[in-house]
């Protein structure tokens, strides 16, 4: 029987975060929006935090 494989949640969350962040940077490079340098750190912290949360959820599920 084929066992359904669950996606690796932290990779998924951080990946989606990076895609959104990259899209934002792209819009900044194209002068559609203006992303200030100071906003980068909070955004990345949020992505890293979401990744950690996802790791916690995953560990909890595995137990």
């Amino acid at each position: 029987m084929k066992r359904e494989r669950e996606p690796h949640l932290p990779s998924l969350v951080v990946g989606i975060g990076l895609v959104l962040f990259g899209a934002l940077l792209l819009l900044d490079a194209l002068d559609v929006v203006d992303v200030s340098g100071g906003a980068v750190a909070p955004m990345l912290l949020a992505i890293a935090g979401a990744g950690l949360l996802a790791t916690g959820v995953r560990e909890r599920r595995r137990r």
Partner: protein
Amino acid sequence: MIEHESRPDGPRRLERSRDDRAVAGVCAGVARYLGVDATVVRVVTVALLAFGGFGAFLYLAAWLLVPEQGAERPLLGVIDQRRTVQVAGIVVLAVACVALLGAWWDVGFWFGGGPLFLVVCGAAVLWFVSERRRDDEPVAAYVANATTTAPAAGGVDAETPAGGGADAGTPDGPAPGGGAGGGDDDDATLAHDPPPPIPPRRRGSWGLTALAVGGVMVTLGAAVALDAAGLYDLGWGGFVALAVALTGVALVASSFYGGARLLIPVGLLLALFLGGATAAGVSLSGGVGERDYRVTDGDDLRGTYELGLGHLQLDLRDIELARGVTHVKAELGAGLIEIVAPDGRFDDEDLTVGERADEGRGDGGIDSSKTIVVGSGDRRLEIDAHVGAGVIAITTRPGARGDWEWSSRCPAGGPALGLAGLRPTCEGDRDEA
């Protein structure tokens, strides 16, 4: 630890380890050959990296030229000679095409070198990974056969894309772990003693990570080349954004197909350093290093003074300004912009002329912009200075950078806090030197 020598009666053979590898098993293989701890060899290799990357070249050469444990031929010879020549021919042809296109569009022989470097590196990574997988197929087939039914040893050779090398390296002996002793004794095709077992390659997520990184590099290199060719104008910030987004896509994909978890720190670091630099307006297009300009005639002023990373100094002590207001831009990615002008001041300062003559002052942080005014009355120079990450300073003499006392000028914590943008302005003490 499994001691394995593929030719017990011959001289010892240098092989890359399969079961004790950090990257390609070179260090563990050398350690096993020399009879020393693998950590020692790894430390030496890392130390050699400091000597102009010598360790990296050595490692790469060993990766290409030293066969893997149990394999007959090295990585370069795993696929048959004809295919190797074909691949080499395609690579040479591709490089020639890139060079020709570069010359055609008049954008430099190698588009500045960057895109080609990225594409070649990415292709190399992809090739290495695909070769590793190809090299694994016969062993995996063997292990599967040996663990199910003993007389199925012939099935190993059913699919041999790796050519003779892989065949020769394919073990006919027992499977590692389980089927020790095997059931091959009654197999008529095996008249000789079976070679010792090959340990399974230690698997990590680095292979998929390398694959993803290679894919990102190839895509990025192609994007840079197209940009250099003038098909669109994305710029350095756009490429960084593309790299971050592609890494994210690779992570999302890997979460379903295998979990390249190593991409998480890679992506976050990429986003932190390059994304942060881009958002802060750091551009490396102006070059790297120290750039000093001394201008004595206002008519000789350029419209823009630019540097990517380092120290940009504009010495205006003896300048004779033209009549009217002259506007100049000073752009620095990261580092120090130093305007040497005794009567220079920030446009939002409120100091008397006497104070200004003796003081040096600076303003720093991330994505910092200031306007510096030199001269007065109807002969004025306005310098619009921008630094992505660093300091904009006004000094009274050149070379004052060496005397730049961060602790006294920025008593709250020096340049680190300034660069972090935690303290937007730091005004200096008297420069007594």
